C-alpha cells in the first residue's frame, strides 16, 4: 500500500484531472441530481472569472466578494431553470452583471451614468506575483488593471467580457441586455476611453513597454 501522503497526492491529482475534464453540462446535471461536489467544482472553476468580473463592476474587493458569492448562490438557486440555450458561462456572467448592478443601485441609484467619475476607486490588489511573469509584464498588467479600474461600470464590463473572457458580441448583448448596435458602439467608446486613460494617466509606463 502506498504511503498516505503519496496516496493523498494521487487522489488530489485525480480529483483535479476529473474536475478539469468534466464539462459544464455534466457538472450541471450532477448538481441538479443533488451532488454537492458538482456545485463545488463549478465554484472552483468559475470563482476567478466571477470575482474579476464583479471587481470590474463594483471596483473594490470587499463588495466584489459579496457580489461574487451572491451570484453563485443565485445561479445555484435558478440552476433548474438553465436550459442550455446559451453557454453556462454566459448565463453565469449575466447573473453577475445583474447582481452587481443591483448592488450598485442599492449604494447609488445613479450608478448607470457612463461618465460617472465620482465613484469610489480602489486599485485592484495584484496578489502574490506569479513567478513566471517578468517585472515588466507585472508593471504592464498593473497599469492596464488600473486603467480599466478608472473606466465606468459598462466600459470596464464590456472590455473585460470581450477581450479577457473572449465573449462574442452576441453573448455580450445577452449578458448586458444590449442591442447589437448598442454593444458595438459601447465597445468602441470603451476602447477610446481606455486609450484616453492610458495616455493621460499611464503615459510614462506605456512608453517603457512599447
Amino acid at each position, binding site marked *: 500500500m502506498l504511503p498516505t501522503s503519496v496516496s493523498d497526492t494521487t487522489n488530489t491529482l485525480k480529483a483535479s484531472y476529473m474536475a478539469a475534464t468534466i464539462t459544464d453540462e455534466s457538472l450541471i446535471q450532477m448538481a441538479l441530481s443533488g451532488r454537492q461536489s458538482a*456545485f463545488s467544482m463549478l*465554484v472552483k472553476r468559475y*470563482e*476567478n*472569472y466571477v*470575482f474579476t468580473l464583479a471587481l470590474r463592476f463594483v471596483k473594490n474587493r470587499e463588495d466584489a466578494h459579496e457580489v461574487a458569492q451572491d451570484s453563485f448562490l443565485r445561479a445555484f438557486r435558478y440552476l433548474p431553470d438553465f436550459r442550455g440555450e446559451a453557454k453556462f458561462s454566459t448565463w453565469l456572467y449575466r447573473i453577475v452583471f445583474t447582481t452587481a448592478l443591483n448592488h450598485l443601485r442599492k449604494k447609488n441609484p445613479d450608478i448607470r451614468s457612463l461618465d460617472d467619475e465620482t465613484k469610489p476607486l480602489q486599485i*485592484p*490588489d495584484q496578489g502574490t506575483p*506569479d513567478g513566471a511573469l517578468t517585472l515588466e509584464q507585472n508593471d504592464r498588467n498593473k497599469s492596464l*488593471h488600473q486603467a480599466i479600474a478608472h473606466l465606468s461600470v459598462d466600459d470596464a464590463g464590456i472590455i473585460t467580457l470581450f477581450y479577457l473572457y473572449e465573449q462574442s458580441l452576441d453573448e455580450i448583448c445577452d449578458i448586458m441586455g444590449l442591442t447589437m448596435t448598442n454593444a458595438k458602439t459601447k465597445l468602441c467608446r470603451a476602447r477610446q476611453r481606455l486609450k484616453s486613460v492610458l495616455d493621460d494617466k499611464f503615459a510614462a509606463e506605456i512608453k517603457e513597454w512599447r
Partner: protein
Amino acid sequence: MENNFLLNDELLWDYADGLLDPVQHQLITTYLEQNQAWKVRLDAIVLEQQRLGALPLEKPNAGFADRVMAAWALEQRVQKAMPAAPDWILRLIPVVFAILILLPLVGLLGGGVQQNIPLRNLPFELPALPIDAFHNFGASPVLFYGVLFVLVFLTLRIFEQFLQLRLQYGKR
C-alpha cells in the same frame, strides 16, 4: 491605393476584433497589403488586444469557494426545514377565488333566466331570486360602489395570497 474609405484606428480595431462585414473586411485587407504604415499600426493594435486578453484574472481571498459552499449548504438546510404548504390550501385558494367571481355571475344569469324564460315543468321549485333587491342595489350608488370596492379588495387580497403561496411553495 488611396485611403478613400477613411481608414482610422477605430476601423482598424473593428477589423482586428472581427466586427466588420465581409466586404469592409476584404477592402481593408487589400488596403493593408499595399500600405505598410497601416500594417504596422494594425500589428500594434493586435499586440494591445493580446495584452488585454492576457491580463491575469483577479483571485478572491483564500477560502472563498468554501464560504460559498457553506452559504449554499445553509440555504438548502433552511429551505428543507421550511414546512411545505398543505395541498388543500393550494387547492382551496383558487376554488374560493372562483366562487367569489363566478357565484355573483351565476346568480345574475340565473335571475335573468328566471325573469325571461318561464320554466314551469320542473320537478322542483326554483328559489325566487331577489331581482327587485338587485334593482334597488343598483339604484344606490353608495351601496353599489361600496360592495363593489369590498369585493374587488377581497378578490385582490386572495389573489395576492395565492401568488405568495405559489412563489413560496409552488416550485417544490
